[in-house]
C-alpha cells in the first residue's frame, strides 16, 4: 500500500467516524461539531485529490458558513443544552434498515458500472473556472451564474425586509 492510499483510508475513516458520531450523539451542539469535523474531512479529501480550489470553497461555504449558521441557530434555541431522549427501538431499526438498503443500492450501482479512469490529465485552474463561469460560448455557465445571483439578491432583500423594524409612530 502506498502512502497516498494510507492517507486516503485515514481521511475516509475520519469522515465516516465523525459522520456516524454526528447522528448518534444525544447532545445537539456536539452533533453540529461532529458534522463540522466531517466536512473538514471532505475538504481534506479534496486537498488529497489536489483540487485545492474546490477544497477551499468547501471550507468557506460549508465549514465557515453553514456550520456557523447552524451553531448560531442552536445558540438562540431554547433548551438546546439538554441531553435528548433516547430514540425508540422502532426508529433505530428503521434507521438501520435504511442504512443497509442505501448501502446495498450504492454497492450494486458501483458493482455494475464501476469507476472508469479516463486517463486524461485533470486540468483545473482558477482562470479556467472564472472563464467558464462567465463564458457565453461552449462550456460557459453565464446564464446559471446570473440566475443564481438573482436568487441571492432576492434572498438578501427578503432578509432585510424581515429584519427591518417598523418605525415607532411619532407622538403628536
Amino acid at each position, binding site marked *: 500500500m*502506498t*502512502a497516498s492510499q494510507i492517507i486516503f483510508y485515514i481521511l475516509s475513516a475520519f469522515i465516516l467516524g465523525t459522520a456516524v458520531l454526528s447522528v448518534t450523539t444525544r*447532545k445537539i*451542539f*456536539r452533533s453540529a*461539531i461532529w458534522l*463540522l469535523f466531517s466536512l*473538514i474531512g471532505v475538504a481534506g479529501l479534496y486537498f488529497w485529490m489536489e483540487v*485545492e*480550489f474546490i477544497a*477551499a*470553497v468547501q*471550507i*468557506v461555504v460549508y*465549514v*465557515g*458558513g453553514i*456550520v*456557523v449558521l447552524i*451553531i*448560531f441557530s442552536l*445558540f438562540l434555541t431554547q433548551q438546546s*443544552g439538554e441531553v435528548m431522549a433516547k430514540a425508540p427501538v422502532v426508529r433505530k431499526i428503521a434507521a438501520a434498515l435504511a442504512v443497509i438498503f442505501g448501502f446495498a443500492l450504492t454497492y450494486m450501482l458501483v458493482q455494475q458500472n464501476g469507476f472508469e479512469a479516463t486517463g486524461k490529465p485533470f486540468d483545473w*485552474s*482558477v482562470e479556467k473556472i472564472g472563464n467558464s463561469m462567465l463564458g457565453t460560448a461552449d462550456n460557459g455557465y453565464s446564464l446559471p451564474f446570473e440566475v443564481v445571483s438573482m436568487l441571492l439578491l432576492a434572498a438578501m432583500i427578503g432578509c432585510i425586509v424581515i429584519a427591518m423594524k417598523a418605525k415607532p409612530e411619532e407622538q403628536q
Partner: protein
Amino acid sequence: MWSLEQLANTVHEWLNETFPSTWAMLIEFVIVGVCIIGLFAMLGLVLIMMERKVSSWMQLRLGPNRVGPGGMFQTVADTLKLIVKEGMTPNGVDKLLFNVAPFVVMIIAMVIMAPLIFAKGLQIWDINIGVLFITAVSSVSVIGILMAGWASNNKYSLLGAMRSGAQIVSYELSAGFAVLVIVILTGSLRISDIVNAQADGWWIFKGHIPVWIAFVIFMIAVTAETNRAPFDLAEAESELTAGFHTEYSGMKFALFFLAEYVNIFVVCALGATLFFGGWQPLHFGTDTTFNHIMDYIPSSVWFMGKTFFLIFVIMWFRWTFPRLRIDQLLNLEWKYLLPISMFNLLLATVIAIAGWYFQ
C-alpha cells in the same frame, strides 16, 4: 551569501539522498512542525512582552522591569507560572468540547501559516490559491471560540462567543474585499506571484488610491477579526468578565492567549505580504545605488520588520481608542466599510484594466 533558502534546500536535498522520498517527506513534516511550534512559542513570548512595553510606553510608565535586563524575561516567568498551574475543568461543562476548543483555535492559527513566505524562498507550501486558502481557513477560527463559549456553560461565555461570532462573520467580508483588490492588481492568488509582482515597488506605492483605501479597511477589519480593542467586545472585561474564556485557567487559558497573539502575527504578515511586498526590499526605480544598498539587508529582516511594524500599529490602536458598542460595531461594518470596499473593488478593477497604476 548565506541565506535561509540555501539552508532549507540543503536539508531537503540531503534528506532526499539519504531516505526514500516518502520518508524524506515525513521527516520534513516533522521538521516543519517543530519549527512552527518553536516559532509559536517565541512569538508568544516576544509579542506579549512587546504589548506590555508598548502599553507602558503609551501610558508614560516603565512596564515590567524586574525579571532579567529591562524585564525581558517577565513573559518567560509568566509562562512557567501558567504551566505549573492547575488546568481546572469546572463541573457542568461539556468536558470534551471544553478541552478541545483551545487546541482547535491553535491548530487553525498554525494551518494559516502554511502559504506565508517568511524570507526569500522560505515557504512551507506554495499552493496556487494561497490567498483564498488563508481567507478560507481563517473563517474557521470562529468555531473554536463558539465551542469554548458554549462548552463553558456560562452566560458570560455564551454572550462573548455570540458577539465574537457576529463580529468575525461580518468583518470577514471587508477583509476579503481588501485582499481582492491586490488579487485583481496582481492577477494571481498565489502568494509567491503576489510577492514577485512587487519587486519594482510595493503595491502601497504602485497601486495608489484603491490600495490605500484597501489597506485602511484591511487594518480595521483584521483588528476586529482578531478581537482586539477597540473591537474587543467578545472579552470586554468590564461587561463580560473575560468573555468566551471566562472559565479557562492555567495552560488552556494560555493557549487562547497565545492563539490571539499568533493570529495578530499572521494577519500582519499577510498585510505585509499583500501591501508592503513581503520579503522584497524597498526599491525605487531600477538599478540605482539606493536599491543596491537595500539589497544587502537580508530578506527575512525585511519581512519581520514590516510585520512587526504592522503589529505595532495594531497595538497602537488598542491603547488609544475606546471600545465600541455592539451596534456601533455592526453599523461601522455594514453601513460604512462594506459599501466603501465594494466601490473600491470596482475602482481597482477599472484601474487594473486601464493600467493606471505605476508599472
